[in-house]
């Protein structure tokens, strides 16, 4: 698909520090803090914002419906246009892309995309129940609805199909938690060993507590603008050069066994005997990447991407996603982490921020947080926002952000670039 709309830029962003629980602030105040940070960073006021997109996943967590309008009203953005977008774990990425569409279509010249989730109002296991209600409630949820269990079955099949090991999964956890040591916004930065990860409590074989991200309270805001506006607002806007979205069946059991949709750097002989996607891969991730790469003109992702922020709710998902994005071939994800290719000093740093594993995952905010971190990375303003330049890459030109919902039902890929 070729996108024919106007050029779209990101001009500012803000994130609250994600935390297990922040009872002194509700979701409105958290968004307000991230929003004001973004406005102040480029000297905008609410009068400069044409409209917004509200990004949050679950009405269950707070038993408050229409939270979106409550934020819109708290921020002082009424009576401007706004809508809520929802798609499970990919809510943030979908909302970011909806903001892109608002600008690309010419409807708005500036759009605030705000995301939030307040998961601390229920205990962790009730929270897992709410998340599991985002699986088929006739056939899947009653059998033992637990998303870690679903992803664990995918991981087991990936291990069976390709020989991926639990040590390789652990290495993703080690990398991301370590990157987070230099990210002041992260919820759980730590230095870990393979033994630490494997010896932490087993949640769902083969995934341990340290293979799984935490639940969080948090908010994130991205401000997008048209070309003309963007360069009025800041000298260093970042262009969004392509978006892609893929989908797959709600039930894992329904995933087909067909052929791999090939990227330009792959050939049919790479996957002669591979039944795809089955439950070892995320077809929606591949579709999203394919659409975004076509729009941005990317033909060799490993060479042409300087940084990736992807949805690592589970260590296994990060390995599966390397393959969906074509950073390596299907089956090579385990080796990719093993060889350190996704480390900060590797071929393409993946989750330099610490990802969901270490930053936390306040669902509706997550995909927007990735956009903000990537924006700062490409703007080379990591030092300003993180108070340390340890995570600033040398001369990044092009980054990819990837947002993902339950077992890969919705996946978004957006490409961000320093304007030429």
């Amino acid at each position, binding site marked *: 698909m070729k996108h024919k709309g106007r050029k779209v830029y990101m001009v500012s962003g803000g994130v609250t520090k994600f935390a297990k629980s922040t009872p002194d602030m509700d979701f409105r105040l958290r968004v307000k803090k991230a929003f004001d940070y973004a406005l102040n960073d480029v000297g905008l006021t609410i009068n400069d914002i044409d409209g917004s997109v509200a990004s949050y996943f679950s009405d269950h967590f707070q038993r408050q419906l229409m939270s979106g309008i409550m934020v819109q009203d708290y921020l002082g953005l009424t009576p401007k246009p706004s809508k809520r977008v929802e798609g499970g774990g990919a809510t943030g990425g979908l909302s970011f892309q909806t903001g892109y569409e608002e600008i690309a279509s010419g409807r708005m010249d500036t759009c605030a995309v705000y995301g939030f989730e307040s998961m601390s109002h229920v205990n962790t296991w009730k929270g897992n*129940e709410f998340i599991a209600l985002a699986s088929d409630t006739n056939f899947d949820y009653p059998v033992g609805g637990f998303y870690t269990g679903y992803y664990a079955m995918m991981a*087991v099949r990936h*291990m069976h199909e390709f*020989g991926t090991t639990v040590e390789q999964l652990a290495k993703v956890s080690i990398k991301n938690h370590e990157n987070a040591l230099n990210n002041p916004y992260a919820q759980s930065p730590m230095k870990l060993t393979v033994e630490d990860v494997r010896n932490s409590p*087993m949640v769902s*074989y083969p995934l341990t507590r340290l293979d799984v991200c935490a639940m969080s309270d948090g908010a994130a805001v991205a401000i997008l603008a048209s070309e003309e506006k963007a360069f009025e607002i800041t000298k260093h806007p970042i262009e969004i050069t392509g978006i892609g979205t893929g989908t797959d069946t709600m039930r894992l*059991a329904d995933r087909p066994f067909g052929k791999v949709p090939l990227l330009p750097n792959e050939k049919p002989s790479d996957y002669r005997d591979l039944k795809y996607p089955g439950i070892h891969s995320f077809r929606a991730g591949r579709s999203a990447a394919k659409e975004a790469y076509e729009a941005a003109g990317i033909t060799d992702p490993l060479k042409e991407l300087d940084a990736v922020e992807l949805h690592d709710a589970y260590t296994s998902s990060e390995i599966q996603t390397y393959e969906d994005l074509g950073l390596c071939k299907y089956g090579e994800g385990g080796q990719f982490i093993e060889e350190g290719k996704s480390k900060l000093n590797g071929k393409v740093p993946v989750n330099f921020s610490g990802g969901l594993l270490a930053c936390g995952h306040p669902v509706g905010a997550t995909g927007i947080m990735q956009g903000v971190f990537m924006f700062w990375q490409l703007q080379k303003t990591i030092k300003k926002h993180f108070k340390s330049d340890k995570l600033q890459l040398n001369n990044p030109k092009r980054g990819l952000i990837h947002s993902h919902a339950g077992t890969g039902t919705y996946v978004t890929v957006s490409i961000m670039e320093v304007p030429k």
Partner: protein
Amino acid sequence: MTINPDAKMDESQNGTEIYSTDPLIVKSTYSIDYIHSYAQDSEFFRALGKKKLMGSRCKKCHYGFATPRSHCMMCGAETEWVELPTKGKIHSYTTCYFGSEVFLPQTPFNLVLVEFEGFDSLFMARLIGAEQDDMYVGMPIVAKFKRLQSFSPTDVYFVPAKGSEKKPSAAVKKNKR
């Protein structure tokens, strides 16, 4: 007289559970009974009581769904109900040591995705009679049905087939590619 300046609102004796006063955090409870219709999936749940596991097959392209659906996702045509074999194989598995709140008392429990000869898609179920280390991809398993139906997909569950013990040759492959 309809005007009463001394009117007083009724007060509850129930009180409120408080977790913290600053910020003020209170307990609030929510529970509902849903009138849940299985609608076009009803036959699947009824059949479990007759010890039958029902899938569906597309009338047009003949794609076989081990988890039934009334319309085919491959071509959009209507499907028909067909009985699945009671013997299948583990396509993938896990053991859950934690879970959603309602299932926590049942942990640890095994989840499996089952493949059936002649069907193109899978079926998710519980497996009992084996522990984490006993299960493997390709393990032959057999469906069993509960005698007392609760009209839930857990009215069917799986057990290992006789003689399905793991053979030493099913060893781990190294990275293939």
